[in-house]
């Protein structure tokens, strides 16, 4: 039987996420590349004591205000967050996560962004740990092994895996091959690689063969479920007059 990973609802796609899961969430500084509908579905589903791994802790859109994974903090589903940019840049407008972190309700592991990306990549690639030149002589080094390579200090960092990855892509085929649009890509491909259950929300689902195999960014093997977005969002996007990625498919 032909492989078909398409689910007809976000609700069904996240129905079996367990309490205590480690969850990767594709996310950067703006709304691009954030799986909003999967995040909403996870809030409705209600899994608790989650460890979220994402670039931010939500609710700090630098140029726009919107609901991302901050709703999981608002719903008290998070016990720990691993992030590089967890705090609002405005002291007057603290994020929900920030309040919970400062109140001791949520544990924060603050990680340099490149180390976060490489830990996720390593986890997905079966690498247990690695040495990075980022961090020696700073608070990031505390409790970590230091070694010198070619005379330069490095610290050891561990690979990071997740039970679930919620990712955002542009197009998927029914087998789960993914392509991305512009800077939407960011953490999404490496997060897709590093989780046992990767769920992608996409603008478009096509038949196998309709994505040029030369242009697949995330191979289907890493993706378990695909859900097509049907609701319109009001974020500015110009899919009809696309920039340089039009030829990709």
């Amino acid at each position, binding site marked *: 039987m032909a492989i078909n990973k398409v689910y007809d609802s976000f609700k069904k796609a996240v129905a079996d996420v367990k309490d205590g899961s480690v969850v990767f969430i594709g996310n*950067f*500084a*703006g*709304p*691009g*590349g954030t799986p909003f509908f999967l995040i909403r579905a996870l809030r409705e589903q209600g899994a608790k004591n989650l460890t979220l791994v994402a*670039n931010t802790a939500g609710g700090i*859109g*630098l*140029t*726009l205000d919107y609901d991302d994974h901050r709703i999981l903090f608002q719903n008290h589903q998070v016990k720990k967050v691993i992030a*590089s*940019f*967890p*705090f609002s*840049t405005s*002291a007057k407008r603290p994020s929900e996560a*920030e309040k919970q*972190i*400062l109140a001791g309700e949520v544990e924060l592991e*603050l*990680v*340099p*962004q*490149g*180390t976060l*990306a*490489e830990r*996720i*990549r390593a986890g997905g690639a079966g690498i247990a740990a690695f040495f*990075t*030149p*980022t*961090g020696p*002589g*700073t*608070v*990031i080094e505390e409790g970590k092994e230091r070694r010198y390579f070619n005379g330069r200090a490095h610290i050891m960092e561990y690979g990071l895996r997740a039970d679930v990855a919620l990712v955002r892509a542009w197009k998927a085929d029914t087998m789960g091959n993914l392509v*991305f*649009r*512009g*800077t*939407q*890509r*960011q*953490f*999404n*491909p*490496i997060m897709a690689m590093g989780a046992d259950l990767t769920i992608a929300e996409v603008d478009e689902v096509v038949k196998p063969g309709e994505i040029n195999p030369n242009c697949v*960014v995330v191979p289907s093997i890493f993706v378990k479920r695909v859900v097509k977005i049907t609701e319109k969002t009001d*974020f*500015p*996007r*110009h899919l009809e007059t696309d*920039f*340089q*990625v039009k030829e990709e498919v």
Partner: protein
Amino acid sequence: MEKERLSREAIAMRIAKEFFDGAVVNLGIGIPTLCSSFVPEGIEVTYHTENGMLGFGPVVTDEDKAKWADIDLTNAGGQYVYPKPGMCFFNHADSFGIIRGGRVDISVLGVLEVNEKGDLANWMFPGRGVGNIGGGMDLAFCAKRIIGATEHTTKDNKPKIVKQCSIPLTAPHCMDMIVTDIAVIKFTAKGPVLKEVAPGWTAAEVQELTEAKLIIAEDLKEIELL
């Protein structure tokens, strides 16, 4: 009377003079982002941004937003940028591979404190006890050249160029140069060297607003923006 200081745009303009043709440049949030508006004529630089993009255009103007704003084409500050032929996208691990692999020629970063050894502290919000490391630490450790962009003093007129940093470091010994609203200072093995002063300022006046002991360059001159 308070002496006139350079504007944020003028700081960015002076930094952009350091760009060279073909340089790969990463601009931080704030004054650094402004540098892209002042790249000298005849010089083409390639911009890199943490969220996985190389070779993009400038920040989209307000009047162009209706046509060009696209949430899938933003820089590290979440600002919309224009597409540019030859640009490319990649994932976050590759993006920091570019940084750690030493392929970013110039990283322009904001500054909270810099000490006389060229240690940089710029991630913890003053007075809040918390902060965002973001991509700044990887850049400060791994870009080929770090240029700081900042006002010379804090909002309550305390020096930012200090003897000892009072907040956690982003990276030790990383600074090459800092451009402020009154001075250009180069960090050397001997200490911070005052190379240029804003029009109307003397070396002694700059030193007064600087906690670290400055070495005055023999060829000290006025900051030239063009």
